[in-house]
């Protein structure tokens, strides 16, 4: 295909005005397991599906605390996520030290976006292959932000990224108007249901493969322990799944979530946000 001439270097535009390397990096995000973020008037919540490489290994951590008031959930290359989280932690810490106040979430996201943009404009770097969902609480209230390898970032009311996350997004869109007035329990329940919609048929949510993080007023970022996870999972136990059974690719392994369409160009809508 003619796009193959223009896709080996991030500094080369395609004739259609696309940077294919950036779009391929976005595909890496879709390979990671799903994660959901949503907020109500006070709290921001992250819910992530953890994946184990094999039965022998532990489940990969998806939620990384950044500061008392900010946490992130990752999807994509974990190593790239570690670099970003180290940067975010340093910025938050320096801000707290010099200003005696927590860093405003939006400003941190802008710094992350600027850092990621550098990688999309140099011939000796590659875009970071990780998408983040950032949950934070500051003077302006709770926030959910999404970042992409394209260095775009979006302020969201709710969002889901990762493998088969379209089902989760559908659920979130359907119930969007109820989130603001939900209390914390209902909010987490909604998030768990959204996450459950991304599961293949034979996989269930349990305390081993789910991670929940909550942040809010007078509530420093807290990643739920086993007891709290059990309580939250009990809220959605025994419910029917809506629109489940997304794909036939058995376990939550690193298979792509639709048949690899080599002849099909990736959708450019999300990748290159040129507005």
């Amino acid at each position, binding site marked *: 295909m003619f796009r193959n001439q223009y896709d080996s270097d991030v500094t080369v535009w395609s004739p259609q005005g696309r940077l294919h390397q950036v779009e391929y990096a976005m595909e890496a995000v879709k390979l990671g397991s799903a994660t959901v973020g949503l907020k109500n008037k006070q709290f921001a919540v992250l819910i992530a599906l953890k994946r184990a490489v094999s039965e022998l290994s532990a489940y990969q951590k998806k939620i990384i605390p950044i500061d008392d008031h900010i946490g992130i959930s990752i999807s994509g290359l974990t190593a790239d996520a570690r670099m970003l989280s180290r940067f975010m932690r340093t910025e938050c810490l320096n801000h707290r030290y*010099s200003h*005696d*106040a927590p860093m*405003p979430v939006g*400003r941190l996201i802008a710094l992350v976006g600027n850092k990621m943009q550098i990688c999309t404009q140099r*011939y000796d770097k590659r875009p970071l292959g990780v998408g983040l969902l950032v949950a934070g609480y500051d003077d*302006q209230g709770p926030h959910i932000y999404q970042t992409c390898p394209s260095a775009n970032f979006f302020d969201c009311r709710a969002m889901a990224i990762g493998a088969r996350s379209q089902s989760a997004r559908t659920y979130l869109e359907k119930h969007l108007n109820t989130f603001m007035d939900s209390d914390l329990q209902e909010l987490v329940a909604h998030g768990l249901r959204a996450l459950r919609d991304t599961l293949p048929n034979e996989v269930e949510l349990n305390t081993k493969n789910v991670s929940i993080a909550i942040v809010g007023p007078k509530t420093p970022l807290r990643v739920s322990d086993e007891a709290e996870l059990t309580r939250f999972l009990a809220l959605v136990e025994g419910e029917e799944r809506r629109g489940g059974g997304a794909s036939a690719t058995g376990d939550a392994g690193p298979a792509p979530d639709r048949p690899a369409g080599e002849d099909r160009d990736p959708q450019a809508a999300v990748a290159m946000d040129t507005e």
Partner: protein
Amino acid sequence: MAFMGDMINPLPFWQNGPAPAAFYNFPGNSSNGPIGQSTQDFKAHSANPITTTTTVIGLKFDKGCVIAADTLGSYGSLARFRDCPRVLKVNDLILLGSGGDYADYQYLRDIIEQKIIDEQCIGDGLQLKPKSLYCWLTRVLYNKRSKMDPLWNNYVVAGIQDGEPFLGAVDKLGTAYEDATIATGMGAYMATPLLRDALEKGPLDEESAKALARKCMEVLFYRDARSFPRYQLGVVTADGVIVEDPVELKHDWTLAHMIQMK
């Protein structure tokens, strides 16, 4: 290639060596004399304040804070510059007063104003808060003093922090403290008792706080040898910051004849 950098930002060919087309001071040699001097870096060690300003006073009242300072820049014992305003509106929440070297204040003032401009450019509706500026100033001043290159100033930061009045002081060593009354320079000895006595009786309202500040400026003019009768008052409340134009003190020397020098 990554190790060559690129056209616009080339990486240097070597580290720790002579820069192309410049004199190189070999490490380990003592100063190379007149020719060597011109290419050495100039490092400041300690500083002497040149044009100085005197006391700043600050006090809290029920709904905000008042800061007062005169407008004289002294050149040693010469009362040289009579219009040196040093009460600054930083943003709608913060008032800053400065005493000490005037050039150092001007330098930091520009940096602080740029910080505010940068914040406006971000445009997210969040404003710098007084405690954050106070903390930032402490870190900057302490850092400079630790390099033996201090900014020779006393700062008084006043403002509204999360709905409550805030008042703090930072000096050239990076010593920082908060209090309901602050006075720097000569005022620390003369104005502090007046301010504390008044506040001990109970919280003040805006008018009595301003009257108290004016009284302190009057006492300071009589007794501080580096003071001046024109001064500025600044007030910060939840409604915003007002820095008034300089006013002239009315001073009465009729009792001067009573002072006998033996």
